[in-house]
């Protein structure tokens, strides 16, 4: 083990755990400052997320969103691209899903609609990522800037579509009509009746998310395309030397990334809401960035990080309900602290841990 190298379990297990603990300690201090008992808060947080069937259901439901957006960000990361546009891609992807459901739900059962909805979400998400990708590849317009701008364009576009085109006649709320049974993804509470999921909206999209994790893992580490994506991300000059076209890789990677983000709507639009509504993405696209960072770009890590953020979302809601002085905004603070420690301050504990393991490993070498 050479200098600065850590065993995998430390890099992927211990360090994230340390970051997390630090985030919770600081959060605990904040809770103390506003005059509440932090242990009580943690109790409600964990109980709210994992203590009963409905809580678990909600945690999984949120995690599903974050897996999709986390994978989207991670795939782009592997090509050295920072896709901040997951939010907009998910939003527009939802439109593709809704259109598939609206077109088919009255004629065929959900499991026939399902593949069309997947295709619709992926296609629309990818299309939304294509323009920034093209601009980056051909014109050198920085993808961080263009994807952020496309989030706003997506938002404006969807407001227009929902309030002018998709809105059913005679209603006042900017959303599409409700899908019939043929456009509704079964909820887990109706599939696994032996487990009490309460009224939680967790649905079959959760399993789709897990399947997509496997696909992404295969894509990145086992296909020729994945090899090219990683080569390009790690060393663009070597990729050019190897005859890998930067234009091609940039565009293909962003299409995949956009498609993954676009699938998020399967969970919300087809699973929970069974209609397209305003702002359904609700920031999940941005949480995906933190999830991808914390998960080290690996599907397993992303699943774990998504579960953590799902837990914070659901447990946080419960906590705000049980201890009213800890408001909804406080929960956002706690989430922000986790992002801060896990993402931005990722390297804070690393030097100390490296030093510790260097000492440890040289001791054993001499022994």
């Amino acid at each position, binding site marked *: 083990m050479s200098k600065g190298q850590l065993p995998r379990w430390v890099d992927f297990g211990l360090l994230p755990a340390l970051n997390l603990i630090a985030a919770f300690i600081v959060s605990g201090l904040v809770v103390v400052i506003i005059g509440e008992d932090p242990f009580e808060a943690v109790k409600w947080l964990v109980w709210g997320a994992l203590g009963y069937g409905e809580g678990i259901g909600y945690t999984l439901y949120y995690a599903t969103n974050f897996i999709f957006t986390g994978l989207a960000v991670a795939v782009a990361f592997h090509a050295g691209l920072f896709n901040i546009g997951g939010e907009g891609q998910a939003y527009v992807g939802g439109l593709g899903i809704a259109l598939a459901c609206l077109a088919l739900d009255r004629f065929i059962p959900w499991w026939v609609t399902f593949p069309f909805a997947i295709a619709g979400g992926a296609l629309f998400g990818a299309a939304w990522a294509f323009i920034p990708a093209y601009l980056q590849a051909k014109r050198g317009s920085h993808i961080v800037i263009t994807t952020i701008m496309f989030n706003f364009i997506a938002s404006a576009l969807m407001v227009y579509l929902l309030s002018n085109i998709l809105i059913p006649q005679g209603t006042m709320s900017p959303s599409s009509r409700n899908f019939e049974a043929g456009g509704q993804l079964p909820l887990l509470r109706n599939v696994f009746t032996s487990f009490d999921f309460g009224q939680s909206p967790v649905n079959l999209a959760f399993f789709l998310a897990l399947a997509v994790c496997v696909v992404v893992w295969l894509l990145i580490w*086992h296909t020729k395309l994945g090899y090219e994506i990683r*080569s390009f991300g790690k*060393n663009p000059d*070597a990729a*050019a*030397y190897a*005859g890998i076209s930067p234009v091609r890789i940039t565009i293909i990677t962003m299409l995949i990334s956009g498609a993954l983000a676009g699938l998020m709507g399967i969970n919300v639009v087809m699973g929970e809401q069974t209609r397209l509504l305003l702002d359904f993405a609700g920031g999940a696209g941005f949480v995906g960035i933190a999830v991808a960072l914390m998960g080290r770009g690996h599907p397993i890590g992303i699943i774990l990080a998504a579960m953590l953020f799902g837990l914070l979302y659901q447990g946080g809601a419960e906590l705000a309900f049980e201890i009213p002085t800890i408001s909804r905004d406080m929960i956002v603070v706690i989430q922000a602290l986790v992002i801060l420690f896990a993402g931005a301050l990722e390297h804070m504990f690393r030097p100390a841990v490296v030093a510790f393991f260097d000492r440890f490993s040289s001791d054993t070498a001499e022994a």
Partner: protein
Amino acid sequence: MQVIDLIDQKGRATVAESNVPAIELIGVNKSFGPVHANKDINLVVGKGSIHGIIGENGAGKSTLMSILYGFYNADSGTIKIDGKATTIPDSKSAISQGIGMVHQHFMLVDPFTVLENVILGAEGGALLKDGVANARRELQRLADEYDMTIDPDAAVGELPVGLQQRVEILKALYRGADILILDEPTGVLTPSEADHLFRILRVLRDQGKTVLLITHKLREIMDVTDTVSVMRRGEMVASRKTAETSMEELAELMVGRSVLLEVDKPEVEVGKPLLKVEGLNVRDDRGVLRVKDVSFEVRAGEVLGIAGVSGNGQSELLAALSGITRAESGTMELSGEKLDLAGVHNAAEMRHKGMSHVPEDRHRMGLVNQFSEYENSILGYHREPKYSKGMFLDRDAIRKEAKERIEKYDIRPPTTEMTAAKFSGGNQQKIVLAREIECDPDVLLIGQPTRGVDIGAIEYIHNRIMDMRAQGKAVLLVSVELDEIRSLSDRIIVMFDGNVVGERGPEATEQDLGLLMAGVNQEAAE
């Protein structure tokens, strides 16, 4: 203590006479896990001398210097600076004790001016104005005293490499360095830039500075140092006065056996041209014409050497031929097939047509440093059917072949799983070489084949190139090492300012080639 005794016997006379040594290391040890990088190192460096430390890649030179500069802490041992025992916990402390370091890879901010780079981290005060004025005065003084003129307002990124290095040296001197460590300083320099550097080092020595020169180039040691220490496999094996030793002795000490510095070049029957380039013009990103109307051919069983000071169009030539960049105009005939180089090509296509390419800079191009050995062993060939199963990579097949190559090319350590960055320079080059030779190309483009490579590996790489020649391949060799060009090539063309300024046989004298490389008798050649 043994080694110090040894040094005394070997006549450290001049060094010992001058008072206390500038640096004294006693029994320094450093391990990284199971690797004992420095074993019981003893070293004495006299004040006001140029001391060379020579050894193969991975001999522990850089580790030792990193200990001196405070990047690493020694596991045990004593460090004495100016006779006083001290500790150097970090580089800040090294600087305050008068130790400056010029790294192999420069630590400069390209868009900043020389002045801004020099004061970076030593600005002195919240407002820049005073610091800048001070620095400007100080730079002027340093420039006068050490004959290191440089425009303080030039942007560093636009300076040639030799001057960038000078900025690094000025940075160290500005911080009050009395001991200057240079880590492989000539790796990036042209021969004339290297000569200039050595002149500066001599001036520094004459002004009382102590210079520690880390290198694996014997010639540099002989040229510029007063005393030299040899490292091998983490140990300090000998110290000598440069005047009392020879290249042969040092080479033997470095590798532990005598080395053939001459290459065995058998007679090979030359066949038909495999690579024919005509009227090649290449512009760089900034629109500057870097290769001007270059034509040549390389025949089967022939090595064509391209000599020249680096930066005279060789890199652009290789990039255009290998399909990485697009030429402005020009054609190439590859194994009988004619290609328009101004058209769209990519490197994969050229490989497919039988041309492989060992790039000049393996870190920038030849390898993905974070990839494991076996992943690097297919870079550029990853779409070959033998490596794939449908859209997937056939990892078992790739690993199996990588293992065979590791054995055949004696790549050490013999593992397919370690990342490329952790192999030594020579072994990294072997990974690239194995990949580009084992695909059985017709034409091999090879740039700076032995840059940053230890002597044992140099010999090996040269022999592989000779094997290619013996097998009737066409080899285009670009190198800034004249010795290498002369000993390997059948014909030599010299590039200057993008033009081919002359062609010579391998028997051409160094002066003759040197004049061509300097562009002196350009007119005569035309």
